[in-house]
């Protein structure tokens, strides 16, 4: 069948199972948008307020569904507006396919109107990218792009399609010519199994790879089998229910005390689907000084990149954990687990009913279903949510772990809410982060999504201010916002509801009567609240600050 490029694109996307696209139209994608108009019954298109929001939405959609997120934008500024969203997906290994229009092939390289070399611009932040100069290559390229985005360690792929290719006719084949990548051979598990059997104080460190590899069940069974506590990277959060006794929660710079301290006392660290980010390890030499390390990851380049393991197991984390489970008898480590229990009791619970971030987060949780989608922006509120929100289901936590993108949250919440079939969604943010991409409230309203935006409003850029407090002699250089933004009126101006909240009672009241449509809760908190525990950058567990 001969189709013009734009139709060929839509047919291929439909064949690949794409039913939702986030995007923003423009001159260089008019032909594609014309096909979206004609195929509205097959592909739902969500119009964002800004291309960055669309990219974050596609990212959030991918994290919730496990399917690749698809975002589309026009050439030039439309394409460059995607860049932060693509980098965000790259750092967090999120499968994302970004489709950009470009000027016609004959105008390429001539600094034409709204022309940029988006393939060159995004090269360092994609798994791969393409410019399609001939419609005959389009179908194959799109299929290959999806295969690359979703296989191995997932990540973003960009396909740039010049306008002339969108109108050029070519044959639609309807099948993939791409050779499937050979599966990773199973590594020899003997040495790892022996090390695990010999360990007296094993500690399991789980990251985002456990979620993208669908190995949550195996990871928990593994921990129970060998009686090992679990620490989570921020990307691995929510892969194990909070109320699992072996789950110590997030470890690292702002990790839970027990999680971080237990890691430092372990004699064997079994790391699955993590990349040992500097935020998770601090001083690498001290981090692994007392333990042997088994590192399981699908990306060979991660094995030894930041931490040199004693045993490397390259491959699919689910297959490897299954293989290890088949070899391992139940182990008991009662002394080690008793020590862990004592560590858990180290910190007293915060006083009830005070209007602290911790209590706000817990109060919000009481009004949400177990499967609510939780998105955050970046900074103090993000760490508080990572520390205190009791996650019970995998793929419910959307946060910018690697890039640390302020302004990620609302777009991600929109994509996550849509991807989850419009489940209740909470967007935790701050006045600083929200200020970056609050325009996407327009999208939440136009889609009438059940998203509650909870602003932990402290009038400052809290995390930077916290560092200025601790490391820069309280020189509060440009972190006091001095803004007069009325977030309640702002919400109303967008057509959402807004409520100002100053105590837990008011918060409960607002959440009890919350609508199934966008709601903004402006929670006024103390600007001097800090995130603790904290290990200073480059520090180690001995440097941990509790308050």
């Amino acid at each position, binding site marked *: 069948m001969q189709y013009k490029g734009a139709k060929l694109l839509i047919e291929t996307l439909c064949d690949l199972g794409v039913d939702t696209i986030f995007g923003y139209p423009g001159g260089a994608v008019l032909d594609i948008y014309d096909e979206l108009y004609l195929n509205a019954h097959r592909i739902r298109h969500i119009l964002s307020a800004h291309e960055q929001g669309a990219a974050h939405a596609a990212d959030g959609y991918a994290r919730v569904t496990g399917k690749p997120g698809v975002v589309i934008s026009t050439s030039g500024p439309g394409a460059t507006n995607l860049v932060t969203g693509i980098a965000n997906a790259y750092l967090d290994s999120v499968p994302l396919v970004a489709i950009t229009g470009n000027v016609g092939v004959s105008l390429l390289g001539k600094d034409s109107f709204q022309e940029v070399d988006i393939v*060159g611009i995004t090269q*360092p932040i994609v798994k791969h990218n393409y410019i399609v100069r001939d419609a005959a290559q389009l179908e194959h390229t799109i299929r290959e792009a999806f295969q690359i985005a979703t296989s191995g360690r997932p990540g973003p792929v960009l396909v740039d399609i010049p306008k002339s290719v969108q109108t050029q006719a070519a044959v639609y084949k309807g099948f993939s010519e791409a050779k499937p990548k050979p599966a990773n051979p199973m590594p020899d598990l003997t040495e790892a199994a022996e090390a695990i059997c010999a360990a007296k104080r094993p500690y399991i460190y789980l990251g985002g790879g456990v979620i993208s590899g669908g190995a949550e069940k195996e990871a928990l069974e593994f921990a129970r089998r060998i009686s090992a506590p679990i620490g989570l990277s921020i990307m691995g959060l929510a892969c194990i229910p909070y109320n699992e006794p072996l789950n110590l929660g997030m470890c690292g710079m702002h990790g839970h005390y027990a999680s971080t301290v237990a890691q430092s006392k372990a004699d064997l660290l079994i790391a699955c689907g993590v990349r040992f980010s500097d935020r998770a390890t601090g001083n690498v030499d001290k981090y692994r000084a007392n333990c042997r390390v088994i590192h399981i990851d699908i990306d060979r380049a991660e094995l030894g990149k930041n931490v040199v393991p004693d045993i490397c197991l390259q491959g699919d984390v689910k297959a490897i954990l299954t293989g290890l489970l088949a070899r391992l008898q139940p182990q008991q480590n009662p002394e080690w687990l008793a020590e862990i229990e004592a560590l858990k009791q180290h910190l007293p619970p915060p006083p009830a009913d005070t209007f602290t971030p911790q209590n706000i987060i817990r109060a919000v949780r009481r009004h949400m279903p177990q499967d609510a989608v939780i998105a955050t922006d970046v900074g103090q509120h993000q760490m508080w949510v990572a520390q205190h929100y009791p996650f019970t289901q995998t793929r419910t936590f959307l946060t910018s772990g690697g890039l640390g993108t302020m302004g990620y949250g609302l777009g991600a919440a929109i994509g996550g809410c849509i991807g989850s079939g419009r489940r209740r969604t909470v967007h935790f943010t701050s006045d600083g982060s929200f200020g970056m991409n609050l325009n996407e409230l327009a999208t939440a309203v136009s889609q009438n999504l059940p998203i509650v935006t909870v602003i932990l409003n402290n009038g400052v850029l809290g995390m930077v201010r916290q560092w200025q407090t601790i490391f820069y002699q309280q020189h509060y250089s440009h972190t006091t916002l001095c803004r007069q933004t009325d977030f309640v009126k702002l919400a109303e101006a967008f057509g959402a509801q807004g409520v100002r909240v100053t105590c837990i009672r008011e918060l409960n009241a607002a959440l009890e009567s919350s609508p199934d449509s966008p709601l903004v809760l402006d929670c006024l908190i103390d600007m001097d609240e800090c995130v603790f525990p904290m290990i200073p950058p480059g520090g180690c567990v001995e440097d941990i600050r509790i308050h």
Partner: protein
Amino acid sequence: MQTERFTVGVLVNNHYGVLGRITGLFSKRGYNIESLAVGTTENPLYSRITIVCIGDAYTRNQVVCQLEKLHDVLSAALFSDEETVITEHILLKIRTSGNEPNALISDIILRFNGKVRDFGKGFITAETSAAPERIDAFIEAVRPLGILETCRSGALAMSHGNSDLLQIPEA
């Protein structure tokens, strides 16, 4: 860790932009390139790149692992010093006083298995192929005479024996 010179061979798809992806990876991750040579293989679908880098054992391992992650890279391999033929080509323009090569220059060129490719008033252009250290020595030998221009190809490397390092896939 000890920093030393090492040579990597890379077999890549012969597309435009692929070289940019390779060099982009090196600049993004802060790996030093000392020389880079590229050309198509006997199969025009593929090109082969030889990169000489400086780095420690950690960098050597990361260079290969990160290269292999690139979609356009079919394979990447480290060449060991013992098991590899490494050669480099140079064109060297040397200052002369007359119109023809004098005995001193001719002698040096001969010593480095070189050839005279061009000459005229005040210059002579020589070429030779040799191991990179030998090329360095050639340059040093003619430096006192006055070097007008040099153009080096960068090292080319091929493994010893019939190993299938960087083998081109069957069609």
